[in-house]
């Protein structure tokens, strides 16, 4: 409401007095050296610092999500040690069963979506700065890197988070942009658009280019556009590997990670449907004996040995995954080369060839078994299980852990990582319901 004329007059008269007093001596001038204003870093160095901030966020938060994916799927199990935690709570396990509990309670802010969104916004802040201030010689590759990370993260959201999730963002002028609900498909399409930008901007760096191509292929597979997927990865060289930065501690390995501390052994037929990551003794899933299960001492438990130090890098995209995509495309096209591709990969690590199971469902099982072992603990497994449901019409109760939960009760029905409606709804009026579908 505009102030009345009299009030304005009174106010301005008084302000004149104040201004008169202050103008003489600068009484109302202060400096705050701890505040960094945006204009202070509007230059090439500032743009690069923004880019590196996004890169750092990507490296950290992509890693943080991998154990979460492993937990809701069959990659890792959960066993509590009563000597460590004498009072069990259902919330700590973050297992499939408890994802439902979490959703029902709406108590905690599951950081999974938030962490990924953090990367999205950091790239949103960095990209315009790079466009404006980075030198031309570097600009293209920097943009390719940022768009590729952005596409990777958007796809990770699409694959892992239940439908109806938001992708909140920030505008060039630092204004929050609140998102409408995304479905898996719409998020994948969004991711593809970002990966296309990365491919278009890539100039000298083939790493970013190939990274974007593999991830785009992954996205296209997710929505059943097999031919385009194959086209996307067609030129990816056979020795291509894109990993996390070596400086970022591997959270799966970290012995002080509370999850490891609490006891998260390698899954072995977890919930009945789970793969035998332990008992198959596959070289692609190295394990080490940990202890006997606390609540059932007849069962031995094993820790993963794929990551053996903090500096072990995690593969984010590779020629191996590209080959697995080619196999999937071939299988979809009823091309027998699918098995050849898989066996060629197996031979590279000394594994025996697989026989063709012939039955279409069994062929798909074989393909996804191979994917699971090749891509163990890289954050791909939840996307695979959900693609089995979506593209191959599998009943979720045939792919996700089911039956009796080791610590009592039954596994739930969650097939995706939920997001906190309570948290989202605080700021985003577009989000009025939680997961629309699992």
């Amino acid at each position, binding site marked *: 409401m505009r102030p009345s004329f009299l009030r304005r007059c009174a*106010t301005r008269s008084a302000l004149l007095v104040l201004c008169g007093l202050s103008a003489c001596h600068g009484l109302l001038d202060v400096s705050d050296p701890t505040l960094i204003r945006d204009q202070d870093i509007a230059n090439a160095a500032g743009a690069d610092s*923004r880019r590196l901030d996004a*890169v750092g966020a990507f490296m950290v938060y992509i890693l943080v999500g991998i154990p979460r994916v492993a937990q809701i799927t069959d990659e890792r199990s959960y066993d509590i040690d009563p000597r460590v935690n004498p009072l069990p709570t259902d919330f700590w396990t973050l297992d499939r069963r408890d994802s439902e509990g979490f959703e029902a309670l709406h108590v905690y802010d599951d950081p999974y979506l938030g962490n990924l*969104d953090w990367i999205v916004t950091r790239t949103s802040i960095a990209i315009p700065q790079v466009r404006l201030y980075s030198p031309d010689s570097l600009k293209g590759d920097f943009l390719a890197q940022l768009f590729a990370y952005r596409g990777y993260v958007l796809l990770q959201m699409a694959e892992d988070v239940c439908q109806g999730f938001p992708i909140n963002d920030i505008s060039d002028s630092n204004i929050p942009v609140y998102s409408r609900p995304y479905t898996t498909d719409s998020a994948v399409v969004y991711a593809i658009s970002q990966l296309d930008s990365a491919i278009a901007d890539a100039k000298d760096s083939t790493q970013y280019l190939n990274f974007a191509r593999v991830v785009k292929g992954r996205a296209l597979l997710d929505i059943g556009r097999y031919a385009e997927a194959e086209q996307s990865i067609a030129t990816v060289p056979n020795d291509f590997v894109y990993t996390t930065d070596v400086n970022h501690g591997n959270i799966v390995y970290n012995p002080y990670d509370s999850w490891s501390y609490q006891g998260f052994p390698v899954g072995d037929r977890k919930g009945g449907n789970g793969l035998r990551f332990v008992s198959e003794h596959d070289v692609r899933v190295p394990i080490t004996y940990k202890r006997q299960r606390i609540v059932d001492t007849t069962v031995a438990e094993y820790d993963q040995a794929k990551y053996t130090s903090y500096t072990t890098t995690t593969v984010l995209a590779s020629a191996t995954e590209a080959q697995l995509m080619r196999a999937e495309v071939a299988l979809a096209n009823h091309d027998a080369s699918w098995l050849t591709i898989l066996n060629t990969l197996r031979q590279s690590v000394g594994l025996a060839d697989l026989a063709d199971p012939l039955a279409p469902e069994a062929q798909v099982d074989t393909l996804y078994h191979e994917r699971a072992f090749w891509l163990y603990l890289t954050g791909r497994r939840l996307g695979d299980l959900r693609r089995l449901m979506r593209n191959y019409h599998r009943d979720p109760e045939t792919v996700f852990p089911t039956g009796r939960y080791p610590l009592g009760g039954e596994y739930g029905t969650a097939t995706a990582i939920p997001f906190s409606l309570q948290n989202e709804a605080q700021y985003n009026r577009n989000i009025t319901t939680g997961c629309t579908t699992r």
Partner: protein
Amino acid sequence: MTLVPMRLLRLSLVGFGSALLANTLLVAQQRVASSASPTEGNAVLARRITVQLDGAGLQQALAIIGKSADVRIQYQYQLIADNDHRVTLRVTQLPLGAALEMVLKGTSISIGPITTAGVITLVRTPARQDAAAVADSIIGTVTDARTKRPMRGVSVALDDSIRLVRTDEMGRYRFADIKTGTHKISARFVGFARQVRLVTVEDGRTATVNFALESGVNMLDQVVVTATGEQRVRELGHVVAQINADSLVKEAPITDMGELLQSRIPGLQVLTSNGGVAGAPIALRLRGQSSINLNSEPIVIVDGVRYKSNNQVRYNFDVESPDIRGNGEPSSPLNDLNVNDIATVEVVKGPSASTLYGPEASNGVIVITTKHGERGASKWHWYARPVTSDVPTHTIEQKGYQVWAHDPADSTRAQVPYACTLVYQYKYKSCVVDSITVAPTFYKDPSLTFIGKNKPTWQYGANAGGGNSALTYYFSGDYSSQDGAVQVPKFVQTAIEQQLGIPALSSAVRNPNTLQNIGVRGTVSANPSAKITLSASADYHQIEQHRLDLNFFNGYGGSPVLPPGTMSDTAVGNYVLNNYFRMTTALTTAVDRTNRWNGVVQATMQPTAWLSANGQVGLDLNGETGHTVLPGSLAIDNPGGFAQDDRRDALGRTITLGATAIARPGPLSLRTSGGVQYIYQNLDGLTVSASNLAPGSSSIGSAIDNKQLIPYWSETVALGVYGQETVGLKDRVFLDLGLRLDGSTRFGDAYHPTPLPKVGLSWIVSDEPALKDRIPYLNELRLRGAWGAATRYPTSGMIFGHVENFQVTLDNVTYNTFDRQMLANPDLRPERSREFEYGFDATVFSRAQVQLTWFTRKTLDELNYRANPTGLGPIWDNVASVAQHGFEASLTLPVIDASSMRADVQFNYTYNTSKLLSLGDAAPPAGIFPSGVGYPLDAEFGYHSLPVDTVGNTADGIIFPEEVHRDLPYHFLGVANPPHIYTATPTVALWNGSVRASTVFDRETGFLMHDNFLNTCASTMTCIAPFVPSTPIDLQAKFVGNSYSDFLSPGDFTRWREMNVTVAIPPRFLRIDPLHLRFASASISLQGRNLKLWTRFSGTDPESRSNPGVFGAEAGGIPQARAWSFRFDVTP
């Protein structure tokens, strides 16, 4: 007209009036020394006389006195003619010198030389020393009508507050440079009925007006110090509470400001932290908390200057938070002040605070006036206060248990060394309990406990004041030293020494919790002319605090037990060290050194009888350095060591210029004030930390790794103009109008300053002619109401956002990066509140006093932390609104009012509550999770874990995790701060005040606190319930559900807060002849604090908060210490 001091001389000196007597003797001795040998003169003046004079003339009185003493008294006749008045004096065996001083008091006659023949000569008092000799002045003395003792600090007003003075130690006052004609002089003092005299001043003459005040209540005539000067309470529409610190500090167990303020004022709450800790922080709340996020502390003004009173700094997200440095918590800067230097404390609540003191005063103002010198001979005062403190550990000395259990899969039945709760016994079947035995806790073992006994506090000090009509002075010095109760136990020290292979730990490690405060203060006031008063004060304090991080002890949330079996002392020490202490924390020492300087220069001018002006320039400098160190190679688990240096320099500047004019057109009185106020505040701080020190070094400069530097900076300038108009009608109805306009660097770009108005109405109903003296037993009745507006600024970071510098290491290369941690919102506005209070004050039966006040406050545009998604960073916005209301009552009842005994009791009651009206767009949809909308700001939400014993379709009496039902969704459980606070303060004075006793009881109800002991009792084995099947299933469900809210329990308590007995030393003991010592007065007090706690709360102490002033109900801390002390006060 000259009034005769009849009442003054009606003095009975049997056993009382020691101060006056001693003073008189000293004066007499000085006179004797000038003209006769001391021995001879002394002998003459020491002769005892017994006389009875009733209205005798001065000449006759002197004759009778001389005859009684067998002494000749000589004087010039004109001297008596100039001082003719009537004398009433009844004394028995009083020294002659004292009797003469009394008879001659108020005259211009003094005792002159005494001849060798013993003849006493009376002379005219020299003009320089005789106030009465000043032309056109009014002088007089004020005494207590009942005790006949002179009264100090009485407000004497000339012509209805045009000028105000206070009486000195001898009860004297003086107005100089008075216009000839008739004037009205009034004298008022708390607890005494106001008296008014008319006096006519003749040209070139001095008029004497003496008062003998009768006890009674006259609360409406009390004078309070406002931003516009001293003002009568009756003129104000809002309530102002007052603490007479000068007398209270001598007669109550008070060491610091927190204790001075606690339990005195309705609506003022002092929130305490862990007990027994030297320098434990406190937080103040006036009428509760109105802001969700901004600092809720009232501001403190000392002698007109803004005083830094709390440790609030702004962190990266620009939320004002307690400044935690290194280990432990720094003490409250408010407690830097020496309470012995404080004259009065006034607490301004309600709508007027902001108008008079600026936007930051919207939480209320605590106005502290320090002591100033008074005219007269130098008066010394010495005090000493030894204190011994003990933390009552019975609440944490609960039984400890040892669960003897074995693993059923283990054929050897070896005992399982963990808590074999019912869940593991019956659900997982991973252990079987063999037996449960009571094990000793080690709180009671002095060598093992971390809470020491009989910790001392020492407080010494002296002050001196005096002066003459041209110059007065006051100087003081104070030293206090406190040892906190928290300690590293002796056995643990020994174990650490053995583990490290060192002969002895450093003194800093062995005594990690101490506080020393040494301070000096000086005030000089000058009257270069009758119209100008200049005053300068300076105060310096040096404080050293050894802070201890209470987290050095793992188990203070429970009562840990020793392992079964016999162990050697060394083994016990090692066991305790390894299981319950964090060695790195115990070995880390943190020392804060503070240099606090504040000073003010004040000038008051009264160019005309109707106009006065004043100006103040003040500084408050607070420089603190902290050094926290874990020396390299000292701790086994952190061999590199660690160091942190903290520096905080806070600077405050206050400049106030104001003027007040008074006019009396007809039946009206107009009091017009205006002024300008400039306040500058700056915090410049730095925290530097690093690890891996050079071996043996404690210097941060030798550190190699993890160097981190955090700057703290804030700068605020505020400039405000204000005006106030108080219109009185026949001294019965007052309309108080005020307006203020501020500019500040903390206003947002889009903010247009809005004038802050206030309106107050005060109606002295009992003075209305239709009612005056017509309602039986009603002495005073006033109705009052006030309305006012206030604002509070957002912080600069809230407006500008926050971009933070990080370092990112990619492929072994470290880069600087910038990340936007908080979004900017340049459109932020200040929080706006409107407060209305109303109530009445009444005095009935002459001495019973009632004050009732209701208040409501509504705050709009509350700043709230908009919970953006993680990827966006937070943003502040003006989205919320909050309502508050409350009620304050104060009742003073005279219980006994006899000649030898007087007893009063004062009751205070406070109720306040708040309600979050809206969170605006930030509010989540209803029904999912309580946002707090519709609930108090300090609401506790949660759920209960309830048993549904159905597993296996049988009620087996054992609750499994799946048998716990939670009454979701989260719902309101209660509030964290007490809405109801009751205080009772009985006081008794015997034998005309020679023995005085007082006590304070507090009761606080209606709130929840978290019982950390019960919450952790399974893991600490301090309760048996989690292990035995006989435990009721309701309790089992709590342990299994293990929700924080399951262990919230009512914190209601009653505490015996204070006790004091003060005995005035009889005069006959005030002389120590062998040492030639004479004392004017002396007293000794026995004082106790926190003597007893009655509570249903199952935890340790509902007042031991983990973080006072911060929302939450954690009370797992160390109980408040019980302290006993003596206080000795001596005036030479």
